[in-house]
Every structure is written in C-alpha cells, then in structure tokens.
C-alpha cells in the first residue's frame, strides 16, 4: 500500500464525517447564513477551534457574496484551498547537515512520545541511517524498558541510565556515545510533563542546554508530540512548550480514530509551528510525513 492510500485509510473516519457533512449541508441549499452556521459547527466539531472556524466561514461567506460560490462542489473546492493555504507548505523532518542529528521529543503525558520515537527510529533505519535512542524518560515506571523494546524492534542503538536518574546525564552520555560511534541520528525520549508544571519545564530546559553542551548546536529538531484527540488545550501545550524550549515541529498522533486533529489549524495559525509527522495507525510503518495538500486532499476525496 502506498503512502497516499495508507494516509487515506487512516483518515477515512475523519474524511467520512467531515466531507459527507459538508456535502449534505450545501447539496440542497444555497450558501446562506443557516448553512454557513452549520459549516462552522462541523469545523468546530473537528477541533479546528471556534476562532479558526469563524475565520474560514467568514471568508467563504465573503466569496459567496461576490457570487463566486454557489453549489456544493465549489464550496468543497474553496474549503480545500483555504485549508491547504492555512497549513502552508510541507516541511518534512529530514536529518540533514549535522552528524549526529539530534532530535528531542517532548510533550504532555500519554500523547505517544515513546511510540512515535520507536516508529521514527524504524523509518530512519529503513532509510539507511544509523540511529541511537536515548532513554530520557527516567520518571515513569518502565518507560526505559518500553523504549528498549522499540530499539530492539528497529535495530537502533540504545543508551539508558537507571530509573530515577537525571535525564540530562542520560542525554549527555547518549550524544557523546553517538559522536564516538559515528551515529547519524540521536532521538531523545523525555518524560511526559504537563506544560503548566514549571519545575518540570525547567528540567526540560536543562535537558536542552545539556544537548548543546554535548554537541554544539544540538538539539537540531525539537519535536512536540500532540494527541489528535486533544482539543483546544493542545494549543496551550504548543504555546508553553514553545516558550520553554522552542518547538521546531509537531508530530500529531492517534489520527486513526474518529478524532479530526483540527487543532493543527489553530496551532499553525496562532504559533506558526509546522506539523511534520502524523501517526495514522499502530504499526511501525504508520508514521507519515505530514503533507498539507495530501492531508486536506485525503479529507476531501
């Protein structure tokens, strides 16, 4: 199965709900106040957020006022273009220019950091990179063991300390080991933390600083893992993690459920942080590059 098919399949629930709804709203009625309100509702139900939804609907209303949009087909086309342009150009995660290329994965508890790292390691190994995983989640029970299993599966190297030890120390050792062994990519797991806990955010800042000490310029990518089932709070997560360590990209997980992941639009709109990866299934191959045009097209086809 090709990339596009898999994405389409993963998003099928999203697509079904959303597109059918859009079609049904505009198939029998003109673009008027009532139908626009219904569209706004559909957008809000996708976690797009009340503000973004109002913006999209407003623009559609303006276009309709000019006489450009009349029936369901052109509404769909307008929405597609609008949503693609809101997301901007694709910015895939490419380990390039540095060796080792250091990726730091952060996020709140339970979003799927460790799983995403495992899948990412598998993907990079397939592309021919050597990968080292660093067990920086020293807090949660058995988090180290969980990552170790993923390291085995993806045949990546693995650096760990004991549970409860200082995550910064693990990170330093991991980067030092990767430099000594000539590894291409280091991926650092971190403990899940709520963005409102300032001591834990301080700890994360330290982890980032130590990366820089172990290797000048590291980390090269700071990936915020976001759960697609989360609502408007995901925007707060992005905001506060960004303030603390500076997020360079987002990995959106659990898109294979009925959750729409519409928060992507709000995050891009408010913070201009690109989504780089999406998780559309449980398998090791179900981590995909985020391509806005494909993402939206998969929604509409």
């Amino acid at each position, binding site marked *: 199965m090709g990339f596009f098919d898999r994405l389409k399949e993963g998003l099928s*629930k999203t697509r079904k709900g959303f597109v059918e709804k859009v079609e049904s709203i505009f198939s029998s009625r003109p673009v008027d106040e009532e139908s626009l309100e219904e569209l706004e*509702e559909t957008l*809000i*139900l*996708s*976690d797009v957020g*009340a503000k973004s939804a109002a913006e999209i609907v407003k623009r559609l209303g303006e276009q309709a006022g000019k006489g450009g949009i009349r029936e369901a087909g052109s509404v769909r086309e307008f929405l597609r273009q609008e949503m693609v342009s809101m997301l901007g150009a694709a910015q895939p995660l490419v380990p390039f220019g540095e060796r080792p290329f250091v990726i730091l994965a952060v996020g*709140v*508890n*339970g*979003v*799927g950091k460790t*799983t995403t790292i*495992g899948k990412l390691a598998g993907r990079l190994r397939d592309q021919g990179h050597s990968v080292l995983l660093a067990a920086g989640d020293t*807090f*949660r*029970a*058995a*988090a180290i*063991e*969980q990552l*170790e*299993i*993923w390291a085995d599966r993806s045949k990546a190297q693995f650096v760990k300390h004991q*549970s409860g030890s200082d995550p910064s120390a693990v990170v330093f050792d991991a980067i030092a080991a990767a430099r000594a062994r000539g590894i291409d990519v280091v991926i650092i797991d971190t403990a899940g933390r*709520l*963005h*409102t*806990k*300032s*001591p834990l955010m301080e700890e994360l800042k330290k982890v980032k600083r130590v990366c820089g000490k172990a290797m000048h310029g590291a980390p090269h990518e700071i990936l915020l893992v976001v*759960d697609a*089932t*989360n*609502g*408007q*709070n*995901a925007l*707060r*997560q992005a905001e506060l993690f960004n*303030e603390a360590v500076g997020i360079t990209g987002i990995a959106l997980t*659990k898109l*294979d*459920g*009925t*959750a*729409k992941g519409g*928060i992507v639009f709000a995050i891009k709109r408010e913070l201009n942080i690109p989504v780089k990866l999406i998780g559309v299934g449980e398998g090791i191959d179900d981590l995909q590059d985020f391509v806005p045009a494909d993402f939206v097209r998969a929604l509409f086809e």
Partner: protein
Amino acid sequence: MFESISDKLDSIFRKLKGKGLLKPEDVEVALKEIRMALLEADVNFKVVRDFVDRVRVKAVGNEVLESLTPGQQVVKIVNDELCELLGSSASKITLSPNPPTVIMMVGLQGSGKTTTAAKLARFFKKEGRRPLLAAGDLQRPAAIDQLITLGRQIDVPVYSSRDTKDPARVGQEALKKARTDAHDILIIDTAGRLHVDDALMEELRMLRDGVSPREVLFVADAMTGQDAVNIAKQFNDRIGIDGVILTKMDGDARGGAALSIRAITRKPIKFIGVGEKIDMLEPFFPDRIASRILGMGDMLGLIEQAQRSFDQKEAESLQQRILGDSFTFDDLREQLRKVRSMGPIENLLGMIPGMNRAKNLQVDEKEFVRTEAIINSMTRKERTNHNLLNGSRRKRIAQGSGATVADVNRVIKQYVELRKMLKMFKGKKGLKIPKVFPF
C-alpha cells in the same frame, strides 16, 4: 490575563442592574458568551447547543435578585444547570456484596489507565482493603513492567502472565488468584485501544464477560476535545461503563470533556487524577468542575485546601499575637510553611478566579525556600526583634543562608511592611484578619 466569563457577563449587564426581569435580548447576548466559553473549554458542540437552549428557557423572565448583578444571575443559572448535568453529588465505587469486587479500567491509549489503576489500588489499600492488580495490557511494550513497578511502590501485589496474549485469560487467572488469596478488590488494567478498533473492542468484551466486573471505569484524558462524545459513546455502547475517571486535571485544560462524556453516557464521574504521583487521585465534585469549565476557578477547592492546612486554633493564636503587635519572624516562617504545605503554588493560583489561564504565570517556589533559609539563619532573638538586625548581623545571616545581603534586606523589608499592614487591620474595628494571607 484571560477575563473570566463572569467578568465578561458583568460588563455586558452592568447597565441592567436593578432593572428587574432579564429580557430575552439581554439573555441572548449572555448566551453567546457562554456558548463561546463552553466551546473553548472543549465541551462538545451538540452538548453546548442543548445546554444553551435549556439555560435560555430558565433565564428569560427570571427575576434578578437584588443581591446579584444580572451577569452574576445568569452565571448562577448556568452554574446550577451545569452542576445538575454533572450530577448533584460525588459518587463512589460500589463494592460487590460477594468479594472480590472486580474493577476494569478501559480507555484510549495514553489516557492514564495504568497509573490510575495503581492510584485506585492505593486508595483502597488506605481504606484498609486488600486489592490485587492485574496486568491485562498485553499490547504496549513494557506495560506489564510498568504495573509491576507501580505495585511495588504501593506494596500491592500484581498478577501478570507473560505466556499468553489473551487478556481474557489473564482476567480469569487473576480472579482465581484474588479468590484464593482473599483479596477483596481486583483491579484489571487493560490495553489502550481506539473505540473504532473492532477486534480490540471485541477482545475487551470477552475479558468483561469472563470476569463480570462490578465496575467498568472509563478513563478519559481531561484534555480530550470534541471527539470525547464519540469515544465515550462507543465504549459505553460496546462494553458498558459504570463510571468515569478524568485524568490530567492538574493541567490547565478546562475539562469540558467531563460535560460531554456525562451528557452522552449519563454515567457519573467518580474520580479525577490531579498529578503524576501515586496519591494524586481525588473524588469528583461536580460544582467545582462547573466553575472550572466556565473559567471561574475553583474557589471551593482553594478554601478547603486552606482549611486543611490552617487549623482554627492556630489561626486564633496568630490573631492574638498580631493584635498584641508581636508578629515575629517565627510567625512569618510558620505562615510560609503553611502556604507551601497546601501544594504547589501554581495549583493554588490556578484555583483563583481569573488566574487559571493567566499567561506566563510563574511562581518561583525557590523564593519561599530562600526566605525560609534566611529566617533560619537568624538567632532566636533576632527573630523576635528585627531592630537588632544591623549591618554585620545581616551579613552573617546572608552568609549562613547562602543568600546575598540584598536578599536579606529584602526579606526584612517585606517583613516590616507586613507588620505595618497587620497593624492596619488592628486599627480598623470589625475588620477580620484573613486566615490565609499569602503576601
């Protein structure tokens, strides 16, 4: 700083005070704000719509009480309605008349089932019961190890088997073990699964049929968005749930999912998870969540926590000392410790109305530690008489506490100002000294 919904409504209604009846057009303006607040809190769109309709019926023609502003009046109606929807009182886990009581944890990946299972086991253990945990998550790597580690931390045995891939078997074996070892509670952890994954949902149903749980608890992330209704509905329709545990409530999520889940399933929310540590599980009080969803803070929770830390007698004796003009550094230190013992300062601030979504709210807990260290480095005499603190004493205190002389000066200055403020309380008749005065 975010305006709380009641502030917003008050500004809309300011002109209306004492006008008597709430007019439909006034109510409409207010309802628009309420709708927005609920959507921002991630309450499901359809739930919001039904809810706003109900409030409209109640609010129009309602007489504005003299004691309330119209804004407050509408908020009160909304708040009452929310409380009613969320359930009127805290509900408990029902125990089976024939032990063991079997409890099954279900939910999406990453909602916090394993941690919550352990928290629940600890809760029962504290109540003097003998819980057994069962590791039924055979999907996620190292999930069994996680539960075993947590079990060790709270000294609760964990049944696990690495030989099978069938959770139903694990459940039955665990039940057998619970019976032979005379455990009165069996808590079964299960693998996280998407509600649309037919195979895994079927597996969960088989597990349920094998152990006939007294309580199936649906564990949901407080940050869940609009999809909460679909998820909860699927789990309820396919497995049947008896209650909900809302996790990660210690963040700044407004927890609108609570309302959505409750509205769809009509099942009570029984506990909330308020921290990563194993003792951070609290009973659910609908009224508190109602004000949190509306962005009004959790004043009740704050007051209760303050009451827990400050007992009445101590407060009175402190009052005596203040009135006698003898508020010393010892008293200050005592107060600092009390405030800190109420929990992380950020959690406290989060409960204050209007502060819960304050941006960039940073409280340096270290400041408390530093101040206390400075007071600790004073002699007993210095603590009761700050006039003694001359330059060389200040220097000594700075060295003793690892602070700078400037830090010491600042603490002394704060103390002197606090005394002045307290004297003012004394001067005004009938003015009660607040029991809590985080300065």
